[in-house]
């Protein structure tokens, strides 16, 4: 019983880090631009396909495809923002959330169908040589792929935080979030800030996609499920806190695996949604969110 439980907890945390990474990009975009990009799951899918094709055609290690997936999704994000989302950016916050949600929903259908058309409905996964490798410590098994994915998620969490805290561009992004008018009076081109933030958020989805295809599998219809997870985690962690988002991911991962352990794995998704509703009722700013930004 005890080993089973700790094994379960470890798996929950490892999976949760992936949820955290999946939500980080969504949260970055929403936090800066107030655009709710519900096509985030499709961006994750594209990252997954980038990894899959680079692995199967060029024989590149899935973890080494990360820069490629990032770059591809950064560019896709920049194009989507410039062509579509920049048109809703000037609306007042409330209608911006609603309009972007509708636009992104339409976009998700288009992206899904594009993937279906080009890459068929086949489920794809990557299995590098070390796929079955795992370590055992204290009678708990740690699969290498999952551990490496956890490390990747953690690295991107830290990198994003350092970028926002310490670089001039990161400070410009934070200033724009706090007060876009004062930011533009500093000489910051806020439209560039929005474009960059959207593209960074998409690039993070690309990274998450490489981990999804390495740990699980991908197919064109996967997007909605991942958007839901990212949304739950974003609300759970709270806005304006990147570490909060990551921890929100861990909480969702552990909740899901605890549900499978104690109740039944059929209920794991439901547990996440219940958690989501509870947080919305009792702590709408999220567990780690601040009301101010």
């Amino acid at each position, binding site marked *: 019983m005890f080993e089973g439980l700790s094994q379960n907890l470890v798996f929950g945390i490892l999976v949760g880090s992936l949820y955290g990474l999946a939500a980080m990009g969504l949260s970055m975009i929403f936090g800066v631009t107030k655009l709710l990009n519900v096509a985030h799951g499709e961006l994750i899918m594209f990252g997954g396909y980038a990894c899959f094709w680079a692995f199967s055609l060029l024989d590149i290690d899935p973890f080494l495809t990360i820069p490629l997936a990032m770059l591809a999704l950064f560019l896709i994000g920049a194009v989507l923002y410039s062509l579509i989302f920049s048109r809703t950016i000037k609306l007042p916050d409330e209608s911006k959330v609603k309009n972007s949600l509708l636009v992104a929903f339409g976009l998700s259908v288009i992206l899904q169908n594009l993937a279906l058309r080009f890459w068929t409905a086949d489920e794809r996964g990557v299995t590098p040589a070390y796929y079955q490798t795992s370590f055992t410590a204290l009678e708990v098994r740690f699969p290498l792929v999952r551990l490496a994915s956890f490390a990747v998620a953690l690295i991107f969490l830290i990198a994003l935080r350092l970028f926002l805290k310490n670089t001039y561009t990161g400070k410009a992004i*934070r200033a724009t979030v706090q007060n876009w008018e004062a930011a*533009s009076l500093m000489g910051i081109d806020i439209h560039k800030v929005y474009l960059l933030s959207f593209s960074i958020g998409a690039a993070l989805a690309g990274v998450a996609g490489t981990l999804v295809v390495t740990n699980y599998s991908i197919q064109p219809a996967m997007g909605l499920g991942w958007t839901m997870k990212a949304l739950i985690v974003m609300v759970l962690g709270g806005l304006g806190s990147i570490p909060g988002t990551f921890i929100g991911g861990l909480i969702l991962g552990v909740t899901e695996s605890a549900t499978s352990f104690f109740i039944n794995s059929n209920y794991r998704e439901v547990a996440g949604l219940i958690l989501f509703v509870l947080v919305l009722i009792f702590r709408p700013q999220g567990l780690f969110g601040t009301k101010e930004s």
Partner: protein
Amino acid sequence: MLSIDTIAVFYKELQAIWDVSLDVNDGEIVALVGPNGAGKTTILRVISGLIQPSAGKISFQGQNISHVPPHKIVELGLSQVPESGKIFTGMSVLENLELGAYVARARKDRSASLARVFEIFPRLAERRNQLAGTLSGGERQMLAIGRALMSEPRLLMLDEPSFGLAPILVEHMFETIRKINQQGLTILLVEQNVQASLELAHRAYLLENGRIVGEGKGKELLSFESVRSAYLA
């Protein structure tokens, strides 16, 4: 240096500014005074490019800036301390000042600018690592001005820098403005503190209901009967 030529400004269908013309010459302190809701802030916002004039023309150093975006206007050397400061409360004093020097032209001199700002406002130096949101009202206003100075402006616009300050601090604030002007910075000052700003300014404009209703040397305007009865009674 700055020339505004018969501009009109609307908020949706509501007109806020009618046919306003105004000039600021090199080295001057020009005051723009008027009662609440006269349109003073609107004029500064339109100069900074935050809103667009629907008629008329604004030029700065000979260049038409009527439809130039705000960040490019700062790059040209025209900065603003907005109403109530609008400092970045979630960042440290130092980060606020660094952001003041965001434009490429100012960024390379930022350590020299920082030293200068700390000389003008020693209080900011003491509190450089403090979160800006925890500063007092007077310190916030100092930070807002220091942040604008970091951009190395040629013309600085201040929107009610004395608002909410204790009388002794107001005096100190006006003294500071005089000092930075004497160091060569041209100033456009929006104020409700009519007496003090007319004494400080070389020239002044009187704004009411979105129109300029008076103009003259600062001290001359002070003796206008209408000004006296309206503001100094």
